[in-house]
């Protein structure tokens, strides 16, 4: 008559546990789903019916009511299919309620009764209660990531029935061990020359400072940016887990493993705001959430829609995106290192002096990402196109491995001191964690007096100087050399 089956539904990148209640009673034969199902969920009826018939069960020709009970919001997706099917079998007495008490079911059903993989199996399994979770065999690796050995894989509804009715063992989960494949990251050694740019990247990686790169096409902006994951400190198991959950929720199943390599995302400038920031219905994570704990690279930043760049400000500030809907808001994680790249001006000439653009053109070009967004950049790198003869003569650069070692130790120092990377040091703690020597203070005061630094720039300089000092192993306090070097890297677009 009645059955209750555990399952879960996806909200953004987080799963939420739901209970699927099935009641079979007398009355006009029919089937209704209540409990705020979305369209895909409503279509469950047809899939479940076909799957049951194909598996050799009868469809009870009575009044069937399915209730998705869980916290308020709309229940989306087809992931409750299996739970509904199992609920029907329990309610019609084919399976005993006792057999499923410790189980949760997360899978979409095919018409032939097969269990199909869907997006977000990892967060779904994670949220689906404390017992074992039955998931499609294809997604067992993802589920294993979230709940370990509590994940059970099955390929068809028939297998599920055999295990529940006849007590047969669950099929062996193959490829349960999630090995992160050996990834070959591009190496900094490939970057010839550009010593200062390399140094700036090192500082950015150590302090998690956002970087603005300005230079003509072919100067190596994306080449440098793509090497950032290789010099960032590896993700902690927790961070790797978070990132893997986001990838799973975004449907990137092939890369939904907990890799310690920080993610790198480079959306094209024609991308829509929703695809980058996240949103849609149901809410899906965007590029900035996929870049969580890693790098978001915006090439040709001036070409992105101004509204998109504006939308980045809140996540940059708060480390997460809140997508508000009439029925409530969904929070997506988005703490990323932003690398913006731009041509110096529309004509993209090598030198400021040979630029043919009028100040109005340059101003308009820079204004597209100026103001509040450009205020988020701590470091600016100016690049020139390397000349061919220089490139031939140059030795390969320092390999990523060596840089990463310095970055990791500087980051460890910062985390040990204040618990967050230097770029996230709140203003009121700067004085405590990044004190200045007398000489350093004199340099900063002079710069402020001369109008070289703005009040906002002042805090950024102090954070970057702190990172430079950490990198050089000169921990206490920040000296004038560190400040001078940081001031040289400041990202101000003031056109004097």
């Amino acid at each position, binding site marked *: 008559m009645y059955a209750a089956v555990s399952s879960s539904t996806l909200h953004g990148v987080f799963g939420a546990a739901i209970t699927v209640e099935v009641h079979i009673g007398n009355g006009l034969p029919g089937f209704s789903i209540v409990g705020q199902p979305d369209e895909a969920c409503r279509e469950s009826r047809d899939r479940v019916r076909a799957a049951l018939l194909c598996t050799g069960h009868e469809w009870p020709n009575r009044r069937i009511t399915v209730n998705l009970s869980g916290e308020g919001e709309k229940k989306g997706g087809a992931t409750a299919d299996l739970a509904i099917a199992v609920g029907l079998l329990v309610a019609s007495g084919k399976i005993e309620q006792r057999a499923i008490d410790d189980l949760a079911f997360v899978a979409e059903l095919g018409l032939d009764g097969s269990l199909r993989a869907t997006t977000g199996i990892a967060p779904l399994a994670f949220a689906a209660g404390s017992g074992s979770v039955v998931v499609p065999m294809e997604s067992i690796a993802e589920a294993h990531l979230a709940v370990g050995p509590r994940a059970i894989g099955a390929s068809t509804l028939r297998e599920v029935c055999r295990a529940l009715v006849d007590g047969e063992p669950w099929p062996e989960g193959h490829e349960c061990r999630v090995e992160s494949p050996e990834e070959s990251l591009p190496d900094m050694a490939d970057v010839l020359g550009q010593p200062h*740019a390399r140094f700036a990247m090192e500082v950015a990686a150590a302090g998690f400072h956002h970087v603005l790169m300005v230079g003509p096409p072919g100067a190596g902006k994306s080449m440098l940016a793509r090497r950032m994951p290789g010099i960032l400190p590896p993700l902690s198991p927790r961070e790797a887990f978070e990132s893997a959950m986001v990838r799973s929720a975004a449907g990137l199943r092939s890369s939904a493993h907990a890799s310690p390599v920080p993610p790198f995302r480079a959306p094209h400038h024609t991308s829509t705001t929703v695809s980058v920031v996240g949103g849609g219905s149901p809410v899906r994570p965007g590029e900035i959430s996929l870049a969580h704990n890693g790098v978001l690279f915006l090439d040709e930043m001036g070409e992105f829609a101004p509204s998109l760049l504006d939308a980045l400000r809140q996540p940059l500030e708060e480390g997460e995106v809140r997508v508000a809907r009439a029925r409530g808001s969904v929070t997506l994680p988005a703490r990323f290192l932003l690398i913006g790249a731009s041509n110096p001006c529309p004509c993209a000439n090598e030198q*400021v002096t040979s630029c043919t653009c009028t100040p109005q053109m340059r101003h308009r070009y820079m204004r597209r990402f100026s103001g509040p967004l450009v205020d988020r950049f701590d470091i600016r790198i100016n690049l*020139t196109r390397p000349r061919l003869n220089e490139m031939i003569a140059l030795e390969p650069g320092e390999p990523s491995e060596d840089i990463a070692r310095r970055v990791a130790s500087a980051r460890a120092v910062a985390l040990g001191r204040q618990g967050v990377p230097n770029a996230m040091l709140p203003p009121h703690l700067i004085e405590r964690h990044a004190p200045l020597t007398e000489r350093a203070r004199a340099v900063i005061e002079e710069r402020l007096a001369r109008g070289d630094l703005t009040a906002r720039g002042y805090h950024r300089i102090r954070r970057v100087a702190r990172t430079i000092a950490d990198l050089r192993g000169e921990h206490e306090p920040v000296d004038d050399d560190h400040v001078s070097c940081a001031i040289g890297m400041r990202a101000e677009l003031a056109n004097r």
Partner: protein
Amino acid sequence: MSAAALAALPLQTHQRLRRLLACGDPVVTFRRIVAGERPIGGVDDRVWHAWRDVAGLDDVVAQRCAEHGISVVSTADDSYPTALAGDPDVPAVLFFRGDLSALRRRRVGVIGTRTASLSGRNFARSLGRDLAMNGVAVVSGLARGIDVHAHRGACDGEGGAAVAVVASGLDVVYPPEHGLDFDAVAAHGVLLSEAPPGTPPETHRFPLRNRILAALSEVLVVVESRTRGGSMITVREAMKRDVTVMAVPGSPHAPVSDGTNALLKDGCGPVTDVVDVLVALGLNSGAFRRGADTREPPTAAEREVFVACGTRAVTVDEIVMVLGLPAFDVGVLLGRLELKGWVQQVNGWWEALT
């Protein structure tokens, strides 16, 4: 202050203002306008309509001037600068901040394009400084590029004076990033405008401003200019007034020097040094003072970096590769040089300040 109120009348032009002031006491004239009496011929119905409701305008203007420290002088006053009094197109009323006595010095106009090259801006700055060191007032328009750099140089130079003529009201800073320069000029000389406070920088006011620039200059130096543009308007105004026009030669390949090179072909005197200008002014060539460097001399390591900057804008990468020093060291040295005033960073490009 009533002269100021007359200048602030709606749809006012400088010719009409001159005619109004010629009618007699501006206080009486203004009172008559408020009372509804047409003071002069040539005020057509459209303008007269706009003047219907100007009671209290004198107080508004006076208050605005007081708020921003702006003074007013008109051709009727004894203190009206003699340098302008004889001009055929004399501005009848001048609003100013600073000290009018700066206009009693020898005066050289230093003007040029707003989209100046690095070397042009540097030249304007050093020329401004050297002129100031020799007691010459530097006249310019406080526009972007050459103008503002000439003024910055003049304010740097010891004992000099800066004279700026701007097109907007003196309380309307245009371009907006030059707020500090407005104040510096007012402190080191005088900041002039024909427009009453609150006037926006309307396009038609710039050529009018340029005529005052030309009228105030005894010698006009064009540092960089394309073949068309505001600088060339000033040059034409200067030629009308028999002001000596000089030009700084530039590369034939540089579009920013097309105008100045054309002036040289037409027979203007070339300027490559402050001495050229001082000689044109007729100053005794024996006693020239050159801008002695007051900057703290660079250390040996800093000097190497300074030399490596060369004569064009460079990135830190280029310096690091030339010198073979670690990027951090070069960054530190550049920071120190910038602090001492030997180099400057513009949008990430470093340039040596000679």
